[in-house]
């Protein structure tokens, strides 16, 4: 693969003023349980090369999985450059060292399908013990990834990454009432993957969801769990802090850099350098070193995130957020969003609540006008609170609001942050009044 990438770069450099090759090989092994039993063992190999060129100042792009045909790849890329955007990239000229981010673990590479089956079986067995009417789907997955990017100005980087993850989904049907509870965890290292937490969380929520209770249409105090925060409230920030959308003026934060727009206790970071986290990398997909970027600091809009071309358009520097897949050019995207923990424990938030709602899973919350910060989703898993205690699960209920406005007057930020899906590290958030709508 490396020699093919070099061959492409060399060939492209003959007809392009600048060229960049991005090469990936990846092997994923998922084992899947369905309805409490092992069902499928898979192996997915992916390899491919993406080529970006600059010809007469314009950018062209092509990608291929064909390692036998460098010439067509180069021709495709050069042919599209005639239409492409004018390059404003500040080309990386140095090789980024493979930093000690602990992203690779030989134990993950050595993990056998048998061992993965045992991990999955353990999760399924533990949770289905809670009732005959519980059906579990589970998957345990390992990935071994190798990434390299190099350009004709001598810049680039390469790294290896392993990921092991476990997901558990429990389903319970009573009459036409369908309950779904799911949890997952992922890590670059086998040792730090904690399936006990996954099993425990699913089991605990099944217990809490035993009873279905009514709630009323009103403005109520609402606590979002870390998962609820990740599923409901962060997409608007990803959009509004994207340097591209800011540069286009489509972000409500455009023109407001440095302004206080949120509660002073609210801090939001993008971090591409958290050890042992699958979304980390020493460099981004353009060979720019990753970094920790304080996007919102003490309630102020502090920075936006950029890839090379967007940074060029905005007259600033890339923040190392040039994310990419094989099929298209890099775009600005986050690595991992982290909200700085506050001072209030979840228990104290609950204790403060006479009547309210705890939201853990939402559905469809990000399908509205997220650019403006709006969310409105079905409460897929949520609990009614009475006198500081969870009294049961609510159904047929929506929670709605504007996250940008809600974070201007936040009730409390949880005192500990939790990883959700390997991409978000967030605490519980407590809002004094959000719109809750329900049947009747």
């Amino acid at each position, binding site marked *: 693969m490396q020699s093919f990438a070099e061959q492409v770069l060399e060939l492209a450099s003959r007809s392009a003023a600048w060229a960049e090759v991005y090469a990936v090989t990846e092997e994923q092994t998922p084992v899947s349980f369905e309805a409490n039993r092992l069902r499928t063992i898979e192996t997915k190999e992916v390899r491919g090369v993406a080529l970006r060129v600059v010809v007469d100042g314009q950018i062209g792009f092509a990608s291929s999985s064909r390692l036998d045909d460098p010439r067509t790849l180069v021709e495709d890329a050069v042919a*599209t450059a005639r239409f492409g955007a004018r390059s404003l990239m500040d080309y990386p000229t140095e090789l980024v060292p493979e930093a000690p981010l602990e992203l690779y673990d030989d134990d993950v590479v050595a993990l056998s399908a048998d061992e993965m089956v045992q991990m999955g079986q353990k999760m399924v067995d533990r949770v289905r013990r809670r009732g005959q009417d519980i*059906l579990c789907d589970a998957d345990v997955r390992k990935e071994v990834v190798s990434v390299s990017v190099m350009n004709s100005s001598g810049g680039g980087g390469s790294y290896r990454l392993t990921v092991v993850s476990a997901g558990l989904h429990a389903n319970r049907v009573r009459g036409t009432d*369908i309950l779904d509870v799911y949890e997952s965890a992922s890590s670059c290292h086998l040792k730090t993957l904690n399936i006990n937490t996954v099993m425990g969380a699913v089991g605990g929520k099944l217990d809490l969801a035993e009873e279905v209770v009514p709630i009323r249409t009103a403005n109520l105090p609402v606590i979002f769990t870390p998962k609820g925060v990740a599923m409901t409230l962060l997409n608007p920030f990803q959009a509004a802090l994207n340097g591209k959308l800011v540069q*286009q003026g489509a972000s409500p934060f455009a023109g407001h850099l440095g302004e206080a727009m949120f509660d002073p206790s609210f801090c939001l970071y993008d971090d591409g350098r958290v050890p042992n986290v699958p979304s980390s990398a020493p460099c981004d997909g353009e060979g720019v070193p990753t970094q920790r970027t304080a996007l919102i600091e003490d309630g102020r809009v502090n920075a936006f995130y950029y890839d090379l071309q967007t940074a060029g358009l905005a007259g600033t520097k890339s923040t190392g957020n040039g994310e990419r897949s094989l099929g298209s050019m890099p775009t600005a995207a986050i690595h991992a969003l982290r909200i700085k923990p506050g001072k209030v424990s979840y228990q104290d938030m609950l204790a403060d609540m006479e009547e309210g709602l705890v939201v853990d899973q939402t559905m469809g919350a990000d*399908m509205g006008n997220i650019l403006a910060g709006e969310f*409105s989703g*079905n409460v897929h898993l949520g609990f009614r609170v009475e006198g500081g205690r969870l009294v049961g699960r609510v159904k*047929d209920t929506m929670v709605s609001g504007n996250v940008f406005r809600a974070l201007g007057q936040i009730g409390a930020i949880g005192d500990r942050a939790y990883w959700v899906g390997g991409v978000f590290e967030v605490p519980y958030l407590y809002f004094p009044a959000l719109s809750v*709508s329900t049947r009747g």
Partner: protein
Amino acid sequence: MRDLIAEALRGQKAGYIEVHIEEAEATHIRFRGHELEEVGRSRVRGGNVRALVGGGWGFVSFNDVEQLRRHVEQAVQQAALVVREPVTLAPAPVVQDVVGAQAPKDIRRESLDHKVGLLQEYNELLWASAPLQTTTVRYGDSVRRTIFADSEGSFVEQEHLDLSAVFVAVARKNGDVEQAFLSVGSKGDLSVLDGRQADIAAAARRAVDLLSAQRIQGGTYTVLVDPRLAGVFVHEAFGHLSEADHVYENPRLREIMVLGRRFGKPFLNIVDNATLPGRRGSYAYDAEGVPAAKTFLIREGELVGRLHSRETAAKMGEALTGNARAINYRFPPIVRMSNTYIEPGETTFDQMLSGIDQGIYVKDSFGGQTSMEMFTFSATEAFVIRGGKLAEPLRGVNLSGNVFQTLANIEAIGNDLEWSEGGGCGKGGQSPLPVSTGSPHLLIRDVVIGGK
């Protein structure tokens, strides 16, 4: 390729093996603001093997097609590790066929210059139609050539063309941002982009108009649903629940989804039909080599059918429907919809509207999601209905409901079936799969709408 596959399958110890080989070429174009941001091409060659040993499945996907025999061996070994009671597959006819694809204005015949020029024209039309903050135009087309072969002797070569485009208008006033869009799709026929001037201009104006629309009060409403949103509704609210892989191993769901159960009033008919010519979700054979079919899901208000793969059909003792689909060679076939629609009724739009004293008219959708029982989708445009007439515009209207109650609460079905071809469906990590949705106007009572 026939020889390579035959050689790879020879002497393997498995109850069933299938091989998919795929070559694909795709073009994508993206405008943002006035600028052409990206033009790119990609080529992929790959394949997969799925093997059944006893009751266990093994699956291997790869790019090095030459190593096919090694991949088959690996899939068989993996399947053998899975110990459970045997799986039988519903018998399917052994098929040998070659199915080409062509479109009136075939994406393969039209030059990149022409495509870029056309999109640029429409992008500038967005700008000219209303005072916008920015625009985005995304276009993608693809040609896939697939081979399906199995250990039972089927060998099917198919060509698949696809095209999708979305035109987004973003308007801004002070800190407030709104957007509106037009999305279109076809089976590789560029003429779907002909004569779209009025639709594009309307999308641009809609984005600006939304800025001055009122927000809705959360609660329960009677809603009049336009055909585009109703199409998303039938796909999300009912279509996914009719996919047999959600049901076949869940005894309690099987009780809920028992054939003959009443879901709606006698005028409700819901169909999935992969044989409709030119629709984006259509195909000749599914990813298990089973011929495409028309399947009634609900007939006269009663559940009469569901969508199957060979495995789920056998397990439930029901007829094959040819709905095993995979988004590409990296994924195994799973049960999916094709073109899903509500058949037209007899009520006119005006009759429905005039009968609503207080309600909401909701149009088109940003998208929808389902958890089987609960579903949710967002309207891109909405109006208050007062005294049987359309009144002031609304924004931020997201609807949610319970499928069992909501289907029963469909009070009237319009006579104006309309199709949407711009949709992409996601399931099991496979997204976006080309599907079409269709519906006439629907009148539904007691729908929960989130709001201020």
